[in-house]
């Protein structure tokens, strides 16, 4: 990067954050039952990904998401991958994300994960690893979108001097995908649980940018297995696709959680009848479970008959005898993850535990081997982060890449780079503190 532009970016850090505060870039957190909104701190010096690295990532991400979509189709239809012994039965059916209510449902174009958020890290050796696949409601795309918009205004020279891939096409990618699966059945809507959802800012921002209607619970009704959006004066418009930001179990009180007020009563029948597309599909949790993660490279081989391009972090499943023994013998140098938890919760580093706590953890693994996975600690490439005075320190960081699948599968040449809240932390989830950077994908 040219020196002039890096200086400009460094100098812009406070004004960019002020702009974003004014735009309302924030996320909500529940702590001890109290809801409050936090700003998401932005570090103005971007992460840079070379064209060579990006070409590799793009190919690998497309391949991975295609295989995951094929897996989801298979699980809710023929279950060949189980019959062929590639994925053990209990990993699928004991998963909380598996929804038998979705058996036999045919989502439009056979797409389940329309929007996939794949979390990656770069090792010190330059090797990228996938840490997690998020196939339910991956959030976070709005932050780099708005950060880029603001930085372009504040430091236009940084973009004139450097060949950065334009990332202002995310809303178009979303819109195109929503139309692909809509098949001219009606309008496209984004369903938000409302103002007190942690990602409400994102829901309203994406609705504005895609031109889709922002719908609140109660705005959508089902009559004769067709979904309608009911406007202010009770006029009804047919809905063809719903980008829903409400989780599976709250989507239809007639099918799932009966007390849910966030969902659309009867939407499952409309969906099953093929009258509406749900983005993402219901039941995707069975494919982004931490236990299933282990099998994703095997899925690539199985469905696409290709070598997996992207690598998983080295992972062990206590379910297999060999891995079980390895984990118990090496627990103090491994990361142990609870399969059922998400958002950076339920992650334990063996090297941070006292001998007593290690024994407790071993006992848990022995009693419930299916509940845990263990991974080698990856030596991340740290990124430099500046505080408001401009002093730098090194932090752990990851990258959430967004992959959008409609008629075709496309990777957004951008992503959300999140960094840990302090130099000693390995956890980079936004609900655990920390901030984000813009991600520059270089054109040459």
């Amino acid at each position: 990067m040219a020196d002039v532009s890096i200086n400009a970016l460094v100098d812009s850090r406070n004004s960019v954050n002020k702009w974003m505060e004014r735009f309302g870039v924030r996320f909500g957190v529940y702590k001890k039952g109290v809801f409050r909104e936090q700003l998401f701190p932005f570090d103005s010096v971007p992460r840079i990904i070379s064209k060579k690295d990006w070409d590799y990532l793009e190919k690998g991400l497309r391949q991975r998401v295609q295989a995951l979509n094929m897996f989801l189709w298979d699980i809710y239809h023929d279950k060949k991958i189980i019959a062929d012994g590639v994925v053990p039965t209990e990993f699928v059916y004991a998963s909380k994300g598996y929804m038998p209510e979705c058996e036999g449902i045919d989502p439009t174009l056979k797409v389940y994960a329309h929007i996939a958020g794949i979390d990656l890290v770069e090792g010190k050796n330059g090797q990228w690893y996938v840490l997690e696949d998020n196939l339910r409601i991956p959030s976070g795309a709005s932050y780099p979108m708005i950060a880029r918009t603001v930085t372009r205004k504040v430091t236009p020279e940084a973009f004139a001097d450097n060949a950065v891939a334009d990332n202002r096409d995310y809303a178009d990618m979303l819109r195109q995908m929503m139309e692909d699966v809509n098949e001219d059945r009606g309008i496209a809507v984004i369903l938000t649980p409302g103002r007190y959802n942690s990602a409400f800012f994102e829901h309203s921002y994406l609705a504005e940018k895609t031109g889709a209607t922002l719908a609140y619970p109660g705005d959508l009704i089902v009559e004769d297995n067709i979904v309608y959006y009911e406007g202010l004066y009770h006029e009804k418009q047919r809905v063809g696709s719903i980008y829903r930001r409400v989780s599976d179990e709250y989507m239809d009180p007639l099918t799932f959680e009966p007390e849910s007020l966030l969902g659309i009563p009867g939407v499952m029948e409309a969906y099953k009848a093929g009258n509406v597309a749900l983005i993402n599909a219901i039941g995707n949790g069975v494919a982004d479970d931490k236990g299933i993660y282990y099998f994703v490279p095997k899925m690539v081989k199985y469905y696409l008959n290709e070598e997996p391009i992207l690598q998983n972090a080295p992972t062990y499943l206590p379910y297999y005898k060999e891995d079980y023994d390895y984990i118990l013998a090496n627990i103090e140098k491994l990361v142990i993850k609870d399969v059922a938890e998400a958002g950076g919760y339920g992650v334990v580093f063996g090297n941070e535990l006292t001998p007593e706590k290690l024994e407790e953890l071993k006992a848990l693994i022995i009693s419930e081997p299916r509940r845990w996975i263990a991974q080698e600690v990856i030596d991340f490439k740290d990124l430099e982060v500046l505080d408001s005075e401009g002093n730098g320190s090194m932090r752990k960081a990851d990258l959430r890449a967004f992959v959008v699948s409609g008629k075709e599968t496309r990777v957004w040449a951008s992503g959300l780079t999140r960094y840990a809240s302090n130099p000693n932390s390995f956890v980079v989830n936004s609900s655990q503190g920390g901030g984000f950077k813009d991600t520059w994908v270089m054109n040459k």
Partner: protein
Amino acid sequence: MKRYLYSYQTIVRFYVQVDRHFLKLRCQPSASEYQTIVDESVVLHPVGFHISIGTDGFGNRIITGSSLIPHDSLAYISSGIVEQTDYAIPDPSPQPYYRCHSALTEPSDELRLMAKEHKQAADLCHAVYEAMHYEPGSTDVRTTAAEAFAQRKGVCQDFAHILLSLLRLNGYAARYVNGLIVGEGATHAWVEVHDGENWIAFDPTHNCQVTHGYIKLAHGRDANDCPVCRGSMSGSNISQQTEIKVIVNEI
């Protein structure tokens, strides 16, 4: 071959008008090798409901309805005639999820211990009957097998959940069944277990293997999957009173 006349009637009265009402009913008999539907009808009030029919993910027949017209009562009658042979429903490959525990059948340590004492479905059924005391009002629709077993009392739904938990601990594919029986004022619950070829049925509340006379409506992993009626309504201050009548007679 035996024939039964059945009728299932529900009246729900709302003290304050309901503005919108969405519902899903599983009130019709299921059709299988065990049970043939000779004649049937479903009548729903208020008449203005938009109705669709279909099947759910477990293969049950469902009726979904929606009404945007304010009303202060909901009533329906499902009635007809079914013909039954011995209770055995052939299924060469039962869905694997019937072998896994579901939310309401998750076992506790004492259920795990009990599961080790018997292997045969009939023995497990008997053990549940012996251990449990039937007591209406001692549990509700959200009570799990482990909770009901801990207090050693419950109703037919709890007996069924406990038996399901024990069967699954022993590796059986087993499912929850909702239906109607002679002499019961409401719906009844029992259990189907896969014997390698067929689904056969046990009723832990009455300590028997089911042969016929049980009108099957719907099945699922547990009671959550197959309630007779589930509704979602909006309006202010909704409170309601429900009245259910069931008649089953051999003809």
